[in-house]
């Protein structure tokens, strides 16, 4: 498949997975993002923290192409993707999850993941029913296991619990050989047990898959990331390791209300 050969060609070229140069986004007079510069190495796991309205999800939307940035360039594994439509970015290995689950309520769990696998392959318009040995069906089954949904494979998505829907949300992003994933608050609304499962799922991802995770729960964010970027009012204002960020007094003041630690 074409997308895999692209991946192997870039492997070892030392290219960054994601490079953001001066990304800005204005909504009329509102400056949602301004001057965002970020370099993320292939396979790196980065947390983006910040209070509500800091511009984190807007940054994700700019990277995935849900809307175009007002200024700046985005490079994905060395290729300029600033002007590509969303589905072309996905075919290059970029994935995202949503803060509010974006699922297919009328489909079963397995069919949903199957479609997610099919999304980056040929035969998206096939009028044949997929056989159980179909390569994308086999991938879907293994992803089902990776996110611990195997006992719900034939259940309608609409009947899943909130926690299961969050797991499926991650499963859809894992489908079809992703190289880089944007996780938008995957732990939102999860119970403490489900959060532990989530940390296990994220830490068990293959090492070549890098990601950015937006997460308000520091216990989750700092345990699944190697490096942390802090955002405030649409700007990056601090970067460091999880330990540095946790100990930083300015960060504690703005983000943690000075009480954490």
């Amino acid at each position: 498949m074409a997308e895999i050969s692209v991946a192997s060609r870039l492997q070892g070229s030392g290219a960054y997975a994601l490079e953001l140069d001066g990304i800005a986004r204005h909504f009329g007079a509102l400056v949602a993002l301004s001057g965002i510069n970020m370099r993320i190495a292939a396979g790196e796991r980065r947390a983006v923290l910040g209070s509500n309205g800091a511009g984190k999800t807007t940054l994700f939307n700019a990277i995935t192409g849900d809307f175009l940035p007002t200024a700046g360039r985005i490079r994905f594994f060395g290729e300029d993707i600033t002007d590509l439509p969303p589905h072309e970015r996905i075919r290059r290995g970029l994935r995202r999850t949503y803060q509010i689950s974006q699922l297919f309520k009328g489909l079963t769990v397995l069919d949903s993941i199957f479609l997610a696998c099919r999304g980056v392959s040929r035969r998206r318009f096939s009028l044949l029913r997929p056989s159980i040995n179909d390569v994308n069906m086999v991938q879907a089954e293994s992803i089902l296991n990776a996110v611990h949904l195997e006992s719900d494979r034939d259940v309608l998505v609409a009947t899943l619990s909130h926690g299961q829907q969050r797991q499926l949300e991650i499963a859809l992003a894992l489908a079809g050989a992703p190289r880089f994933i944007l996780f938008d608050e995957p732990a939102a609304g999860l119970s403490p047990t489900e959060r532990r499962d989530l940390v296990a799922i994220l830490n068990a991802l293959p090492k070549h898959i890098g990601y950015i995770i937006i997460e308000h729960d520091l216990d989750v964010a700092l345990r699944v990331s190697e490096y942390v970027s802090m955002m405030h009012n649409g700007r990056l204002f601090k970067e460091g390791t999880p330990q540095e960020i946790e100990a930083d007094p300015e960060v504690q003041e703005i983000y943690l209300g000075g009480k954490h630690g």
Partner: protein
Amino acid sequence: MTALAPTDKPAAQSILEKIGAGNIVVLVLLALYPAVASDFFLTQIGAYSLILGMISLSLMLLAGYGGMVSLAQISVAGIAGYTVAIFGLNNSGVHGFGWPFWIVVPIATLVAAGASALIGVISNRTEGIYTIMITLAIATAFFYFTQQNYSLFNGFPGYTGIRAPEFWGVNWRDPMPFYYLCLGFAVVAYAAVLYGSRSTYGLTVQAVRDNPRRMRALGFNVTAHKVVAYFYAGIIAGLAGVLLVWFNGRISPGTINVSAAINVLIIAVIGGMRHPIGPFLGAVVVVLMQTFAIDIVGAERFNTLIGLFFLVIVFVSPDGLLGLWGRIKPHLAQESLRSGP
């Protein structure tokens, strides 16, 4: 795949199981119907219901699976009908190239499908009630255009004297052959939709209905998938349009006016849009009412009766007759109707 769930399907299904007992019973009954039905019941009720059912099926495909309620499906069928009249034979003295049916029918179907895809392109950026409005506008505009254009559509009188062909030693105009012709087309269309709903493409259309944004984020070109759905719906509506023009022997703006467009929607709603059998159920009910309501309440008020029935159905069961069935036998309905919205 170490742990497959116990609900896993048995490895081999017989052909009987794959097709489904219910489908086979219905097919056998429909095949035996000419043995008991008079010519009137064979054509005016049987064949006509199958034709209207196919047009509504094309709407059900778009609306039930794709969430796109198009009111222009009767226009698509009409385009196929006009194409048959222009390229085949008619006795209106305009066009009528007299090409053989085996060229004309594929051309008519493709022209209709292409027109349907074009309607899909035009209405692609709309959703919900706005899709209904823009397709209604297209249907209305097309109706007035056919009425006023004489060079291509022969204006108000349209085309008359269009006949179903004779081949294999059968005159397909005769009631029983024509009924079987309609039944054959309808069964193929029904089976294609039923099978296709669980195909890769069928699943993508349902997923686009549920969440277009996520489909884009998974690498799907949502616009292309919607337009292709219109194209396939156009094939079904186009074939039905060919049958309709053979059934009526004529095509004129009256065949494709606004009330005909809305009739297609009424049929689909009365039958239900969760399963491709719904439009055919709705068509039988509406055709029976249109035929016999005149005897019950008189020619002046038969539309009132149909309207009242429509209201009752929508009020009692928003999912049409299929939804009613679902209430009586919930466990059966859940199994057989699962692929719907």
